[in-house]
């Protein structure tokens, strides 16, 4: 077992340790770059809105960005919530880092609106709604996504309030609305109990909502626009690979935090890499499992309509992004992560994570560009294989800008909300003790009910 960073075990309890918002040591150039990218994202978004409203093919690459955000920023907070449910102490300093991605994930809603507006009517094409027409898919998907995003924001805020509120006297001195915003947090036993229950139940709800939103969006923006693509596993593939990318982006962020934020650097270390690395290996294997379960069945059964759809996403039309995906999300990460050395070092695993984050972008390209750019989404099978639809300069700028915007929003959020969740880390320091047993040092981990 890789030992936690020493600082994490010896947090001062009295006075209680309170973390800072990101005390960033980025130089001016870094900040300027992020701001420029963010600005580019906003500009490109507006340009798209003006020039391409209702033109589905034009929104193909924005859809890729939407699914990229849904697979990275929206899934990263899951690490915080799942580790909280499973009492994973190794994740303590990571939880806020991961949960902060709830903020940039709000951008996905901004993208969803124009994309949904460009969708063709449901009649005559396969869809999940089976004639249920109360606003589907536009209202339903927007509703589901907004509930998920709001849950994420609520969780982020709830779990940050004990750190933000400061001493009880400070909250008591606040105005009425501000106090409400801070949940009137004075740290009573009852408040702690409610906070804990809210964190657990909302976390579970977020997990289920995440899977559900992936099912809806991956179907409505993907499968249902490409005739012959009938794959029950695809929503799960989409969600699971999203989790893989979410883990990757969290590890990447953690490594950058350690590099650029002196305070976070005291707590983030190889323990997180080792524990999350194992899960990343599992998720990387999952990529193959879910890909293979999909591919094998279609290729084996040889139903012409299904094979044609598979040829688009895997074998012929988008073979280039597919190969890049397979290498970046599976082959290279697996080959590197089997080495303990890589898995147990935060800086090395961050490199592998970067590969995965790039890989997921190509993965989303191969799955969502063809359906969005498909001129005839109606019927049961395709007449001919569509030609590949590569991005033009505008699309590339859009992708760079919007993904840059995502990171800019993250950094902005991190500068407002502490990047470490002090209360949980304090709690953890009480439940983790170093002791000597026989001749060795061991870590004793308490598991309260």
């Amino acid at each position, binding site marked *: 077992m890789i030992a936690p960073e020493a600082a994490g075990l010896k947090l001062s309890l009295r006075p209680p340790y309170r973390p800072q918002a990101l005390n960033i040591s980025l130089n001016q150039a870094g900040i300027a770059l992020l701001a420029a990218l963010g600005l580019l994202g906003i500009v490109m978004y507006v340009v798209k809105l003006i020039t391409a409203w209702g033109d589905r093919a034009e929104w193909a690459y924005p859809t890729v960005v939407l699914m990229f955000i849904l697979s990275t920023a929206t899934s990263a907070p899951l690490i915080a919530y799942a580790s909280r449910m499973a009492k994973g102490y190794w994740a303590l300093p990571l939880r806020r880092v991961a949960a902060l991605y709830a903020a940039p994930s709000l951008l996905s809603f901004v993208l969803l609106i124009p994309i949904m507006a460009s969708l063709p009517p449901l009649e005559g094409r396969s869809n*999940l709604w089976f004639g249920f027409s109360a606003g589907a898919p536009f209202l339903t998907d927007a509703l589901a996504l907004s509930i998920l995003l709001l849950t994420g924001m609520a969780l982020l805020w709830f779990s940050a309030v004990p750190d933000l509120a400061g001493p009880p006297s400070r909250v008591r001195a606040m105005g009425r609305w501000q106090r409400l915003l801070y949940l009137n947090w004075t740290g009573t036993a009852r408040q702690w109990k409610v906070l804990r229950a809210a964190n657990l139940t909302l976390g579970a709800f977020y997990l289920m909502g995440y899977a559900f939103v992936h099912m809806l969006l991956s179907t409505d923006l993907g499968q249902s626009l490409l005739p012959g693509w009938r794959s029950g596993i695809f929503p799960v593939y989409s969600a699971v690979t999203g989790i893989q990318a979410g883990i990757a982006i969290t590890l990447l962020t953690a490594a950058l935090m350690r590099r650029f934020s002196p305070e976070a650097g005291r707590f983030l270390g190889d323990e997180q890499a080792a524990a999350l690395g194992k899960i990343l290996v599992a998720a990387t294997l999952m990529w193959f499992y879910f890909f293979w*379960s999909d591919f094998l069945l279609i290729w084996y059964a040889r139903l012409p309509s299904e094979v044609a759809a598979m040829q688009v996403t895997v074998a012929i039309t988008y073979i280039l992004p597919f190969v890049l995906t397979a290498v970046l999300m599976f082959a290279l990460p697996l080959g590197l992560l089997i080495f303990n050395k890589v898995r147990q070092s935060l800086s090395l695993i961050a490199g592998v994570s970067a590969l995965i984050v790039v890989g997921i972008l190509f993965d989303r390209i191969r799955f969502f560009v063809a359906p969005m750019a498909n001129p005839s989404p109606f019927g049961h099978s395709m007449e001919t294989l569509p030609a590949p639809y590569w991005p033009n300069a505008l699309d590339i700028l859009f992708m760079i800008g919007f993904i840059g915007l995502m990171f800019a929003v993250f950094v902005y959020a991190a500068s407002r909300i502490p990047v470490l969740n002090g209360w949980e880390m304090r709690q953890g320091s009480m439940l983790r003790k170093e002791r000597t047993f026989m001749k060795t040092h061991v870590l004793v981990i308490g598991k309260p009910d």
Partner: protein
Amino acid sequence: MQEPVVADTKTSNRELLDFVFAWPAWFFAVGGALNGLLVAAFVVVILMLMFGLQFLGYSHPVYWGFLIVNFVFWIGVSHAGIMVSAILRLTQAEWRRPVTRAAEVLTIFSLLTAVQFPLIHSGRPWRTMYWTFPYDWNRGAWPNPRSPLVWDPSAIFTYLTSTILFVYVALLPDLALARDRAPNPVSRAIYGVLAMGFRGTTRQWRIQTVAGLLLSAIILPIFVSVHSIVSWDFAVTSVPGWHNTIFAPYFVIGAVHSGVSAVVTVMIVMRYAFGLKRFITRDHIDSLARLLIVVATVWLFFFLLDFFFGLYGTEPAEVDTWQRRLVEPPWVVIAITFIICAYIIPVPMWMFRAIRRNFFWMFVTTILVNVGMWLERYMVVVPALERKSGLTFTYGDYAPSLSEFILVAASFALVILGFLTFSKLLPIMPAADIKEGQILADRIRVGRANVPAAMRE
């Protein structure tokens, strides 16, 4: 886990030995009844060998039925052992300790039972050598590697071999203890050979631990592959209702659902039958039930995906199959029973701590889950064959015969008998593992609370 197993050695000795030494009347009654079932099944099998498969309820379009359903079911149950042992070992869940051996033994016997079924189900079992073993150098006629039925034996036998290895590695210290305790030279010799010279040196312990961890990690891909391949027996074909890409994970998670439930059932039975009240506590059942809630919910999600994406393409034959499954008379009853038993009753009940910690209700709900999961496999396999394509002229139906009921009942008998026999010969509670847990157990004071804790190296 809130309370580790703590029992002073004398009490635990007495209580664990009670069953091994005592021969209660129920053992003979149960054993006799089980053997009676087995004899009936042997009669059926021999009749089938001699006179063909006419005794089964199969007819023209429906060539697979109860026996394949039962095969899938037992392969499913076999997923419990490794789920509990390997995954919980890798995630260092302390509460796994008393549960592991029973779960692994359940795995072995359910696998052994499962593999009987494709064998007796084939038309000419005496020729199945062609199927599983590539021996035909002379004629250049080989098994067909493209067939999922060839992937099946490879996966299952790999799984069986590795599970036996897994159990054996964990058994070594216990076998060494048995050797040291053996009352007569014969059994001492037998246990001695089995223990492979395990003396409890530091090096041996280290190797045993590393071997266990490595096997846990290596066995997981096999674990996933086995039921995936079983699902591909169905899903690679273009049969509407079978051909769905979700099948592999859907089957795997369903297997874990029914397997872990079976483990809970077995643990509760063992607790009373073998007098292990001190070792199998409410905490264990509680933890397993919490695991089950997650597993069951994921499984339900996959089931719904199977359903949605079955109807998704609105292919006529596919819709007919789902209509057959969920609406038409004999099946609608089965469909409702299955979903009620496998999810609607148990999971909401497990939400309550009081239920999770109640042996009676956990026993009932986990039995219900397995009833439901058996019916689920039935519902997956058979209606799809009854409604196979647009050619409605060949639509048929299936009604199981008495022989099939006997064979299915006998499969349960075989697993239970195997489990009972094992528990008479070898310790069903992992003594060394439990002891390790007791050493690693610790407590931490937090303010006024005294929190149970565990050591990690």
